[in-house]
């Protein structure tokens, strides 16, 4: 079932005229006739959960916003999609930008935000142009600016580019960066719903979450809640990548199984080059990696489905998380140690350096993993890695420390034998040419 990407394939849907002809901005027309509280109520009924990673109910988040007299409120769209393996927001903004603008107008009206920001990562430079074009078109047609559609509601949307820091995807770091400061996460409380941008009440939502507000208003919250299963309502964009036949962005309605998602021709079409599935990270680089046996079936032997509850079934011992929907698949030729090293290097580089466990621990983990990967590791290093990650997790200001610790923990938990193989076979692990071994040039293998 497609709600968000239903019309993404239509030619020139990027332009206002085409988008409007295809039924765009109907939700704004409908929403402006409702009261803000009714919209929040509809979103609450829909059971929409934040699509950025944490999965917090959006309607509840909206109802937390403080409403002091005379203080402006803000809505910020988090388009700083920097999680390795996640590229769903990019697809959405690039192909159907008006959907986001439409969702932003409705949400701004619901929250009473007259100035709304889109904080977009610096690397998405060309998407800034697309969004700004869409904003101008919307403004020219009276959907933005002063007195929208004669209702007396004013709303302006500004696009702000980040400077390329992963940490600015964390909502308080994003707010700091938006204010023009160094992107260090703030210490919570106070939460952004009380003190956000310029100490004003602020709601920060992911691109996909805000886009999902459009179908919710169009079809009604109760109707939207019927899609999906349990508390995982609606549709979710999954950006599948790795050793797959058909990597890309897919919209799923959270009722399909993981097996169906990987192997059916409608979705990823199986593992590339006829190889076997080894492991998968189901929700972007920060969530724990799962081996194939635990990915397709839970520890209890039930089928694992692509939804929030099923993916996190079994906790971190035998489960993972839905996360931001970055579905990274590893085939049998991939080395989990090298993969973990890549992630550890990323988190070391992206740690803001504010609090000590994350600043020092991420660098330390990377160095140890490098040693193991390049055949200089010891058995004690594996235990040391485990100890370091356990001391980072939960002891930091923002979730980046947890995000750096979880992949390492899960890799050791499920693939300890592979780490040990690296320690025992230092010469062989230098010779392996991961992933390319079977179809690489002979000369490349000789290195």
């Amino acid at each position: 079932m497609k709600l968000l990407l239903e019309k993404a394939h239509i030619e020139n849907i990027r332009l206002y005229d085409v988008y409007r002809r295809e039924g765009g901005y109907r939700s704004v027309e409908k929403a402006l006739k409702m009261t803000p509280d009714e919209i929040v109520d509809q979103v609450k009924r829909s059971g929409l959960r934040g699509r950025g990673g944490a999965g917090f109910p959006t309607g509840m988040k909206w109802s937390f916003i403080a409403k002091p007299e005379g203080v402006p409120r803000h809505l910020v769209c988090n388009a700083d999609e920097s999680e390795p393996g996640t590229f769903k927001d990019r697809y959405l903004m690039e192909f159907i930008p008006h959907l986001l603008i439409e969702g932003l107008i409705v949400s701004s009206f619901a929250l009473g935000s007259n100035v709304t920001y889109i904080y977009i990562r610096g690397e998405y430079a060309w998407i800034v142009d697309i969004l700004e074009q869409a904003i101008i078109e919307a403004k020219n047609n009276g959907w933005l600016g002063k007195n929208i559609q004669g209702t007396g509601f004013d709303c302006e949307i500004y696009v702000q580019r980040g400077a390329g820091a992963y940490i600015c995807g964390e909502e308080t770091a994003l707010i700091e960066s938006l204010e023009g400061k160094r992107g260090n996460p703030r210490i919570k409380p106070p939460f952004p719903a009380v003190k956000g941008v310029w100490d004003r009440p602020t709601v920060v939502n992911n691109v996909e979450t805000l886009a999902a507000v459009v179908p919710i208003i169009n079809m009604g919250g109760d109707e939207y809640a019927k899609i999906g299963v349990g508390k995982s309502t609606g549709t979710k964009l999954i950006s599948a990548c790795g050793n797959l036949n058909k990597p890309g962005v897919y919209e799923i309605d959270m009722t399909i199984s993981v097996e169906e998602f990987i192997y059916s021709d409608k979705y990823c079409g199986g593992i590339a080059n006829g190889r076997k599935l080894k492991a998968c990270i189901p929700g972007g680089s920060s969530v724990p990696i799962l081996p194939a046996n635990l990915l397709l079936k839970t520890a209890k032997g039930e089928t694992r489905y692509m939804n929030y509850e099923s993916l996190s079934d079994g906790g971190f011992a035998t489960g993972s998380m839905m996360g931001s929907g970055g579905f990274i698949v590893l085939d049998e030729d991939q080395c989990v140690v090298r993969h973990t090293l890549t992630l550890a290097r990323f988190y070391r580089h992206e740690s803001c350096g504010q609090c000590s466990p994350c600043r020092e621990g991420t660098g330390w983990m990377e160095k140890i993993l490098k040693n193991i990967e390049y055949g200089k590791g010891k058995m004690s290093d594996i235990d040391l890695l485990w100890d370091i990650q356990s001391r980072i997790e939960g002891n930091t200001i923002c979730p980046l420390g947890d995000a750096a610790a979880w992949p390492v923990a899960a890799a050791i938990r499920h693939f300890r034998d592979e780490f040990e193989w690296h320690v025992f076979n230092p010469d062989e692990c230098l010779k392996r040419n991961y992933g390319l071994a079977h179809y690489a040039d002979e000369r490349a293998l000789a290195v």
Partner: protein
Amino acid sequence: MSEQQLFKVTIDNITIEVPAGTTILNAARKIGGDVAPPAMCYYSKLQGSGGKCRTCLVEVSKGSEKDPRPMPKLVASCRTTVMDGMEVKNITSPRVTDARAGVVEFLLINHPLDCPICDQAGECHLQDLGYDHGKAGTRYEFQRRTFHKVSLGDYIQLHMTRCILCYRCVFTADQMTAKREHGVLDRGDHAQIATFIERNLHNEFIGNVIDVCPVGALTDRTFRFKNRVWFTKPVDAHRNCPTCCGEVQLWMRGDEVFRVTARKDEWGEIKDSSDGKTGWICNTCRFEKKHISDWVIEGPSNINRHSVISQGHYVGVEKPAETFEKVMDGRKPRYFMDIHNVSEVNRPDIELSLLDGPATAKIFDEPQKDNK
């Protein structure tokens, strides 16, 4: 003024009542002793400081009277305010001591441990923390992060290699100066405290960044390598300064002033001066006035931090009621010489206790005569 609400909070089974809005750390400091968590980045005189070093983590085993659920994670006590009926575990929680040992290890992996040549040694908070909560060995076997030394003007040396990125100096510089000149460049473990392109700092109060630095990353260039802090004796003194409060601590050896700092309290933070404001001192007092005649000496400082600088045991010093003359039966004080012990051997004929006044070289220089 409305009646201030008092919250009851129990820290390590000791209950205390504090006003609403107090942080757990400050409540624990009111109890004092080992109950107070260590703090490397929190500085009560600086707005916005704290929360970064994670050494002050504590376990909240009961959220409040209304909502008794424990907090799932350890919380930074310097930034968490108390609730009524809150129960906190600090040194009684193995989880906290374990996490704290981890934080100490993290802080030390990139620290050069060059204490033998560091000017801060002896009054270094990281040393104290390491002794109290750390382990003797390290599991880190890689090259440590290094930086070049930078001089921020004539007075301050920045030795970034030793820095633990507590941000205290950044807050100090921001809150004392009108223009922002001092901040953090880069991210992660290669982040560094810097002034943009090694620019000098010129503010009249910028010397205070040396006092707030918990480690030896910012040191006084007029004192560098002159002496070890434990050889110098802290003395309270003041002068009539037109810019600052002029109330300082002199670090003296003999009658030579080696270093001037602001006065610090038992948590290593700058004390309030007599007019009730924070006792920041100006650069002139700190760096220029290095002669004893510049100052009015008040007496030895009371230092009760448990580090090596308190070896003089200046805790609870009381001035004696008697004067020197009274004690010495009317004899006037003169300079003492160190010949007392040798005189017994060299000139046993001179009975020291019979001399009128202290024994001086003059008595021993005189040729022996029948002076009895």
